[in-house]
């Protein structure tokens, strides 16, 4: 099928096309989904290399499930986030006890269209945010990232985390409060002025 025709096709349909032997469908699904999984895994793990491994494994599981995929039963992206969440949880469990991990791998910030200084400041803010996220309990971090960075709706997050909508709301709210408390002491890292009492960034 021509590439420009595939661009408007849903993930569901692309997966069926892949299972039917369409190689272009695999390329398009990779382009659509792998950045999202990689960004999510990077924020959960704070380690780019591990996040890349998780992304590859999650995509591999998607390719394997393709022939049995039932269209309309679940969103491909939701399924993939769920797999990535479980893989990240397993990885974090396996690395528990290992000391000295660098938890500063924030997603890369592109400098295109911005001044180098602005890009540097944004990179600093993203690193500070990543450090704060890394201090949250796993479930709170997952909920906050899925809701406020990946932009998913609460029912979708509930499917990913095996929770009801109210539990997701509660988890997200607690995570956000904890994040604000952690970032309160890092206004300088975020590029906010410590002396300006009227413009406290976070508390």
């Amino acid at each position, binding site marked *: 099928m021509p590439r420009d025709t595939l661009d408007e096709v849903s993930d569901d349909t692309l997966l069926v096309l892949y*299972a039917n*032997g369409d190689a272009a469908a695999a390329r398009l699904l990779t382009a659509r989904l792998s950045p999202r999984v990689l*960004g999510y895994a990077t924020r959960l793990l704070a380690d780019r290399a591990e996040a890349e491994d998780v992304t590859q494994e999650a995509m591999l599981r998607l390719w394997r499930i393709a*022939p049995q995929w039932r269209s309309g039963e679940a969103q491909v992206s939701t399924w993939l986030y769920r797999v990535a969440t479980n893989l990240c949880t397993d990885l974090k469990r396996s690395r528990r006890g290992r000391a000295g991990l660098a938890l500063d791998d924030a997603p*890369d910030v592109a400098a295109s269209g911005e001044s180098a200084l602005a890009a540097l400041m944004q990179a600093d*803010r*993203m690193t500070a*945010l990543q450090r704060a996220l890394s201090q949250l309990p796993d479930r709170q971090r997952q909920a906050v990232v899925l809701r406020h960075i990946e932009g998913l709706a609460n029912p979708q997050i509930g499917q990913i985390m095996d929770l009801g909508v109210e539990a997701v709301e509660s988890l997200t709210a607690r995570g956000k409060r904890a994040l*604000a408390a952690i970032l309160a002491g890092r206004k300088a890292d975020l590029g*906010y002025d410590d002396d300006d009492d009227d413009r406290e960034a976070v508390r």
Partner: protein
Amino acid sequence: MTDVLDLDALLAEAAGVRTDPSAALTARILADAAAVQPPLANVAAARPRLGLRRWVGDLVAGLGGGRAVAGLSLAGVTGLFLGVVDPAALQSITTLVAGETVLAAQMDLLPATDILWTEN
């Protein structure tokens, strides 16, 4: 309120940062996809049947599947055999039904309908 909005702005800024996979990662993912992709031969085998094969398939399915069709065929062949051969062993059953000794081939198993046409 301002505090919440600032945290929201920071999270929104993070949401706008796209994490592009490296060319090496993309190549690894696509290599996996190619390695486990079902072969096209399976796709051809899974194509919908057309014409006579499809008609026969639908008929068999409508009759209850292959086993039901096999049972029906066996019953039909047995009935034909009994009708043609007229084995002597069946004569006792004929006598029991007809009440007298007649040949099975002479029996009138359909009731007469003349009575329905007579006027009172």
